[in-house]
């Protein structure tokens, strides 16, 4: 092919993208430089809090005998607490070429840890704007795109799970509800690894996986497709196991969780305040400290045999920021009455997804996916969107140009600043989904974890999530738009989308994974 022919082929680039490219105006770099504060920030914890014994445990003479050790493995490190009573940062003892980034936290003297090496931060210390224009960004992007495309291929198979969990955990009357479907998926997958027989089968069915090997490979793909730590984007996934050092564990399962799920194992006495403190520290640091209100109440029960804690911390910046000076004070018509909120405004060409039940738009996030906003039509209950298959479809519009519900319009959007969080008990949700064995000590099978197979059951399963959006990173910044011609290309249709009553949102990773989903019913 000759270059002129390629130029000709490029004539058929997606017309919507042509319009957007023409309309694009870079903001001053100062806005990127100022991105120290989160523009969109979210985090979640899932605790399958305790696979507990029904009766007291048998003690082993050498309780640590079956711990996975770093011997022969280059990607694991072991940390023992300082016997002198001093605490020490666990991350410091990892091999120099495989640093962990699960955060530095104090490990008390009576605890030890086995920690996998996490991916290194990309361009650590580089300013966001410099990173954006550097070769480092390209190198990272090329690598990330490969991982992301694998993960993208899994999304259609996960839609049933996403809808199931959203239906189970987001329906409410007046409370704001928010979850991280991806976070729960990974935690349940870890639980599946530690179970067997019908117990595992039930979990696999929930997760839509035919077998544990497929699930393991899928989680690894999802993990790699969503783990990002660059100066522009934080999407940090972390997993941990909190283990009772008086119990004999089977090394194979813990090795698998370390290697394929990046799960750090912490051994100690769950009855001690130190171990609970270490759990809180780890969780706090892996959720960016923004879930402190919930983390402070985390305690290990003395009878705990295992606590799985899985986290996601996400911080991304709007691709086009809001200008705080354009904010107005408006009423939000919540289910519990009107409240005054800070409404952010912007007009932009946007893909609009319209059905009889809702109108949805999305806002792009730098180097990541998008946040989708779903405004139900007047008279439509926002809860009904959770079982509407069109909600998932709306998040795929970028890839479905032939969907008749999708169109492009100039959207005058008004979006309230909000911060919502909640804690969900997963027990009933799991039971509603047909997961029963894990709660029943007579039926459960956790034999891959330990031989105490008839005594273990899940005593606690909860999920906490928080999502907040605002214009931080933009407010007060001296950014301007360069005003060039091109207005003639604006699409004819112009719509107003005012989120001044209960609405639903989803935050999707670049691969389409639903990182967070929630419903805002009231804003205080």
């Amino acid at each position, binding site marked *: *092919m*000759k*270059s*002129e*022919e*390629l*130029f*000709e*082929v*490029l*004539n*058929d*680039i*997606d*017309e*919507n*993208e*042509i*319009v*957007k*490219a*023409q309309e*694009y*105006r*870079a*903001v*001053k*770099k100062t806005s990127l430089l100022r991105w120290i504060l989160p523009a969109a920030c979210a985090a979640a914890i899932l605790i399958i809090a305790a696979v507990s014994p029904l009766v007291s445990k048998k003690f082993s003479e050498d309780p640590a005998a079956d711990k996975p050790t770093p011997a022969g493995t280059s990607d694991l490190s072991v940390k023992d607490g300082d016997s002198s009573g001093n605490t020490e940062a666990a991350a410091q003892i990892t091999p120099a070429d495989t640093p962990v980034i699960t955060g530095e936290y104090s490990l008390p003297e009576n605890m030890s840890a086995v920690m996998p090496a996490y991916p290194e931060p990309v361009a650590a210390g580089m300013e966001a704007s410099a990173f*954006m*224009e550097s*070769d480092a960004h*390209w190198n990272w*992007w*090329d690598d990330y*795109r490969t991982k*992301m*495309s694998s993960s993208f291929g899994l999304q259609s198979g996960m839609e049933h799970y996403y809808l199931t969990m959203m239906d189970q955990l987001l329906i409410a009357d007046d409370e704001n509800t928010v979850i991280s479907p991806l976070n729960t998926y990974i935690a349940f997958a870890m639980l599946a690894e530690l179970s067997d027989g019908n117990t595992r089968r039930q979990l696999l069915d929930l997760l839509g996986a035919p077998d544990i090997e497929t699930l393991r490979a899928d989680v690894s793909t999802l993990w790699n497709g969503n783990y990002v730590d660059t100066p522009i984007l934080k999407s940090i996934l972390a997993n941990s196991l909190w283990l009772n050092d008086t119990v004999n564990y089977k090394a194979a399962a813990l090795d698998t969780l370390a290697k394929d799920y990046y799960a750090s194992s912490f051994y100690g006495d769950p009855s001690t305040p130190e171990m609970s403190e270490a759990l809180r520290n780890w969780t706090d640091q892996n959720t960016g400290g923004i879930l402190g209100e919930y983390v402070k109440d985390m305690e290990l029960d003395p009878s705990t045999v295992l606590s799985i804690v899985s986290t996601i911390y996400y911080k991304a910046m709007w*691709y086009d920021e809001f200008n705080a000076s354009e904010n107005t004070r408006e009423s939000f018509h919540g289910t519990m009455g009107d409240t005054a909120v800070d409404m952010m405004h912007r007009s932009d060409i946007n893909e609009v997804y319209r059905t009889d039940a809702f109108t949805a738009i999305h806002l*792009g996030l*730098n*180097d990541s996916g998008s946040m989708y906003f779903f405004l139900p039509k007047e008279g439509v209950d926002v809860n009904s969107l959770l079982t509407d298959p069109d909600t998932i479809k709306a998040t795929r519009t*970028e*890839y479905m140009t032939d969907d008749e519900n999708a169109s*492009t319009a100039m959207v005058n959007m008004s979006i309230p600043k909000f911060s919502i969080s909640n804690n969900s008990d997963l027990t009933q949700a799991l039971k509603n989904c047909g997961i029963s064995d894990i709660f029943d000590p007579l039926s459960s099978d956790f034999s891959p974890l330990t031989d105490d197979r008839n005594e273990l059951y899940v005593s606690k399963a909860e999920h906490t999530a928080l999502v907040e959006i605002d214009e931080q990173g933009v407010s007060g910044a001296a950014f301007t738009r*360069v005003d*060039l*011609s*091109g207005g*003639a*290309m604006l*699409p*004819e249709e112009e719509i107003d989308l005012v989120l001044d009553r209960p609405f639903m949102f989803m935050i999707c990773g670049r691969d389409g994974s639903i990182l967070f989903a929630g419903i805002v019913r009231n804003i205080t």
Partner: protein
Amino acid sequence: MNDNEIVQLYWERDERAISESSDKYGRYCTKIAENILSDHEDARECVNDTWLRAWDSMPPHRPSLLSAFLGKLTRNLSLDRYRMLHREKRGAHNMDLILDELEDCVSGADTPEDTALGNELKEAINAFLRSLPAQKRYLFISRYWSAETISGLAERFQMSENNVSVSLNRIRGSLRAYLNERGYKL
């Protein structure tokens, strides 16, 4: 007048369609043509031809995005005129540079026309573009669809000219690798 009304004028064979198109999209189409031809007179002629081509195309076409439809006509007409005017060796015009840059993505060999393959290739290119970060996607489209100059892009994207060139170079390299991985040997 909105786009639907203009399109309707074409369908009703009302000659006001041309004046309305010219009023609304003349400046936009002229810019594309000038980017490709680097000559105002040539560009003006291409834009005039655009309205005639649109007249011949509607009906049967009923474009959903009239701006992009007319822009594509201008782009094609401008490329044809560019080919006619630049049969000899390329120079240093903007379009010459664009084609030189695109050499990175192609072998230069003759390729048989194959409509089915062509459609797949177009979809692969669109998929590649969707996989890019938005800013880089817009940069590529602005350079290789709208044929904007490097200096113009540097100003609009708030980048140095060198950074624009380097970024475009990386995108072309990525595009070539992406297409090669999928079996397209251009």
